[in-house]
């Protein structure tokens, strides 16, 4: 026992010299400085410091002295006994004593547990190797700094707040940093996909390597850390590994002492545990089912705790939290609930030139969440409106532009009056530097629509974030004549840009991923819709054949599954038969597969192929493996792609045949298979003008004649029957192939997604197609060259890839519920 001077006051013992414990003491002293004799135990051998500022210390922006909250003099002046570097290891509630690691035992009248939280260590082999550190206290920072002095490679496991701050610090200290994050997007608890993409892009620009969906299998090394191996086999070299995957309330002491513990130590509204003489505060507690890992709730908790101890009512009601990332140069703010849902409305503002993304989520005229990237000036204003639950109906239209605009009268004013009040030299379009005067002059000069203004003076033609202002100026100038009608409709309700605008921007601005397009063109939704996502995926793959990364979640079901979904949810499978020609061996394999996988119907299609109906999604990779083994590949009967080349038997058998139509059909199919297009694409080759292959209702048709080949385009046998137009006549098979490839590439590059060739040709005119494909020899060869280049990347049999295990999750149930068990939940 320590000999204490006789002191009649009750003894308050605090376990934990961190932010929560010391703040609670400060609050108690502020209310009644003489009420308790106070002793604080700290595990770390130092005074109380601001733990959340460890990131700037790691980054070299602050020193330890800068982040001390209470120095040694505070303890002395307040009469507090600090026992640091000697953690408490046991609580005896019956005897009302605590025992420290050194063996020292102290009795208490009131005990305050403020043990905080422990870093979560993922249980992988190698986790205990020297060089694996967490990011929790100053000792961890010192270890990281020591490693950074030697340079080399750092791996940070965890792409949340803490992990990214650690990565930033190590990167500034000169290490080559790789961040491994299990989830598909960084900081997924705080950021939506759009903001997370901006963050990732910025961190990569700064030299960090960010791997998402990276599942750590093992930390490798013999005497110390040498690297990290992922479950997919990737190995990353590492001289230090920082585990920053999360924290857990530190509850071991409380649990051993028999206090009620759930996820954290359970407390009431005044931070009292299940024992009336034991209190708890901070990250170690669970209040009303919630645990908190951020600093802001501490302040409220400590106030309620202190008020409770001095006998005044001030119940803690839980906290709404907000997040800012402490990485210099990156402004990021997140608060509340941004998962959306019923009755929630998104207000999105994007400004590509400034790298800004703002999203405010409104429900029943109240803000429920906000995500800001690039411009966080209004974060606290939104957070304040959110916490107070203020009705924002009156300022809704101006809300996203921020407090200054909304409270400056911008909100309540009629938007037309607002633009009328602007001076002529007020800037409307920041991207292209267009003033109000220039826009008005452009409208006066005859531009009567948004598209007219965009092509006339370029206002709102780049990122589109000023589209609303331009439309208001049109309404101001034209009055009722401006109905907002567009000659060219926008792609979908997520954007004000047309298909053509979007495709041009993809090339011009070098956009290579869907989130990049959405940001650059000010998409009004966070992740698009089922209409624009597949279109963007196609435009990107067409623009960047070599670099494109497929996004299966932006594919319609048939293209995602490489089979045709039927109304009962089973699939139909069509193997490719080149030119409609098959062999007994292939037919046997198809018959075997049909029986083995229970195909309920085998049907000859309109395109001369065999279709196996009723295949279950789980069986698809297996039936494909069987068909592959017999030499057959995907028939792409499911895709916006080259479907089939239909042929007649031609000169080899038919007494009327003029050329080898079957052979040419096979050559055409071998050249064009696998090509993704704006819509499905059908080809036919007839050996004579009797046209048995019905080439005159195909997207591309060939009719063989004695002197060569008539090439036909733009036919359709669908709802609107359209016969083909004659493109031209050529003399050789080589020419037929070249013209075909060039025509397809022109269609791929110019048609809107989901346009068949028939409506596309009706819109652009046959003369345009002839000028590009027939008259312009150099242009045709260039189109043909681009087509063949793209085919190098597209002619991979997707069935073989799936049969080998790619995207296996698409074909397997996650688990199965049986009456007494769940099966297959790995």
């Amino acid at each position: 026992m320590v000999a204490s001077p006789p002191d009649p006051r009750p003894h308050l013992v605090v376990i934990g010299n961190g932010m929560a414990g010391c703040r609670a003491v400060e609050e108690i002293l502020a209310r009644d400085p003489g009420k308790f004799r106070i002793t604080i135990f700290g595990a770390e051998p130092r005074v109380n410091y601001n733990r959340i500022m460890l990131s700037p210390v790691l980054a070299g922006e602050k020193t330890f002295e800068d982040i001390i909250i209470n120095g040694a003099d505070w303890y002395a002046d307040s009469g507090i006994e600090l026992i640091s570097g000697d953690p408490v290891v046991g609580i005896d509630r019956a005897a009302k004593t605590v025992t420290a690691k050194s063996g020292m035992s102290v009795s208490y009248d009131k005990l305050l547990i403020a043990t905080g939280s422990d870093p979560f260590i993922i249980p992988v082999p190698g986790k205990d190797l020297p060089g694996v550190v967490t990011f929790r206290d100053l000792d961890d920072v010192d270890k990281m700094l020591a490693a950074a002095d030697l340079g080399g490679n750092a791996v940070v496991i965890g792409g949340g707040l803490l992990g990214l701050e650690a990565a930033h610090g190590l990167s500034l200290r000169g290490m080559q940093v790789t961040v491994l994050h299990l989830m598909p997007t960084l900081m997924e608890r705080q950021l939506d996909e759009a903001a997370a993409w901006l963050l990732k892009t910025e961190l990569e620009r700064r030299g960090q390597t960010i791997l998402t969906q990276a599942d750590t299998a093992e930390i490798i090394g013999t005497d110390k850390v040498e690297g990290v191996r992922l479950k997919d086999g990737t190995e990353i070299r590492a001289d230090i590994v920082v585990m920053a995957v999360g924290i857990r309330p530190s509850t071991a002491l409380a649990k051993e002492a028999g206090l009620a513990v759930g996820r954290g130590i359970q407390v009431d509204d005044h931070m009292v545990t299940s024992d009336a003489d034991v209190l708890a505060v901070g990250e170690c507690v669970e209040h009303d089912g919630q645990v908190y890992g951020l600093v802001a709730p501490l302040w409220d908790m400590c106030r309620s705790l202190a008020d409770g101890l001095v006998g005044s009512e001030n119940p803690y009601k839980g906290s709404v939290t907000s997040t800012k990332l402490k990485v210099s140069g990156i402004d990021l703010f997140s608060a509340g609930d941004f998962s959306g849902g019923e009755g929630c409305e998104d207000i999105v503002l994007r400004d590509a030139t400034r790298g800004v993304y703002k999203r405010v989520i409104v429900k029943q005229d109240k803000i429920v969440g906000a995500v800001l990237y690039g411009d966080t000036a209004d974060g606290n204003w939104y957070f304040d409106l959110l916490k107070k639950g203020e009705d924002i109906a009156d300022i809704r239209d101006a809300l996203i532009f921020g407090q200054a605009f909304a409270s400056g009268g911008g909100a309540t004013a009629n938007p037309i009056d607002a633009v009328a009040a602007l001076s002529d030299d007020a800037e409307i379009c920041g991207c292209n530097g267009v003033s109000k005067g220039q826009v008005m002059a452009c409208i006066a000069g005859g531009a009567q629509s948004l598209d007219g203004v965009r092509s006339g003076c370029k206002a709102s033609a780049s990122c589109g974030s000023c589209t609303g202002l331009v439309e208001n100026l049109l309404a101001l100038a034209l009055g009722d004549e401006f109905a907002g009608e567009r000659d060219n409709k926008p792609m979908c309700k997520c954007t004000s840009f047309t298909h053509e605008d979007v495709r041009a921007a993809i090339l011009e601005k070098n956009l290579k991923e869907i989130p990049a397009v959405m940001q650059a063109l000010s998409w009004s939704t966070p992740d698009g819709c089922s209409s624009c996502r597949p279109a963007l995926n196609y435009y990107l793959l067409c623009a960047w054949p070599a670099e494109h990364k497929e996004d299966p979640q932006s594919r319609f079901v048939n293209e995602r599954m490489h089979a045709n979904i039927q109304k009962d949810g089973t699939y139909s499978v069509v193997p490719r038969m080149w030119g409609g020609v098959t062999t007994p061996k292939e037919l046997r394999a198809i018959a075997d597969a049909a029986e083995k996988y229970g195909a309920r119907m085998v049907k000859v299609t309109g395109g001369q192929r065999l279709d196996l109906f009723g295949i279950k999604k789980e069986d698809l990779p297996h039936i494909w493996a069987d068909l592959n083994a017999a030499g057959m590949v995907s028939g792409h009967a499911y895709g916006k792609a080259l479907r089939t080349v239909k042929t007649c038997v031609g000169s080899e058998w038919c007494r009327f045949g003029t050329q080898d139509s079957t052979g040419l059909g096979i050559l055409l199919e071998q050249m064009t298979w696998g090509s993704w297009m704006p819509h499905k694409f059908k080809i036919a080759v007839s050996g004579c003008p009797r046209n048995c292959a019905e080439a005159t209702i195909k997207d591309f048709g060939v009719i063989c004649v004695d002197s060569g080949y008539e090439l036909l385009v733009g036919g359709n046998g669908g709802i609107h029957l359209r016969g083909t137009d004659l493109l031209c006549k050529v003399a050789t098979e080589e020419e037929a192939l070249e013209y075909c490839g060039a025509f397809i590439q022109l269609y791929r590059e110019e048609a809107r997604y989901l346009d068949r060739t028939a409506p596309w040709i009706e819109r652009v005119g046959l003369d345009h197609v002839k000028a590009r494909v027939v008259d312009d020899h150099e242009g045709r060869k260039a189109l043909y060259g681009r087509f063949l280049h793209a085919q190098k990347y597209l002619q991979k049999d997707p069935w073989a890839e799936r049969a080998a295990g790619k995207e296996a999750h698409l074909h397997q149930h996650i688990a199965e519920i049986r009456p007494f068990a769940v099966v297959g939940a790995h």
Partner: protein
Amino acid sequence: MVTADWLDIGPVDQLPALGARTLPVQGGEEIAIFRTANGSVYALLNKCPHKQGPLSQGIVHDTTVTCPLHNWRISLVTGEALGDDVGCVPTIPVKIDGGRILIARKEALQGVDG
């Protein structure tokens, strides 16, 4: 693993973002488990109120799935058809705990005898 009220059906990283997986229920109706862009998880019966299309195969955007058969949009939160369409598919409570997906036993087993 069977607990009183919640069934553990696997780790959350088995669900692709903006995607879905299926969960057959022996003797009952197949369930579709969805994951949105920001990681929220929802469960609906895997059949569209329109013509029973497998919702698990649709495109997920925001908190909506578009049915692969006829493009009905269904709210993942309420199961209600959105826009002009009228219909509702039952939702099943689901939550994430420690990286595992837990589904409500009672609702998941609806319609199963015994």
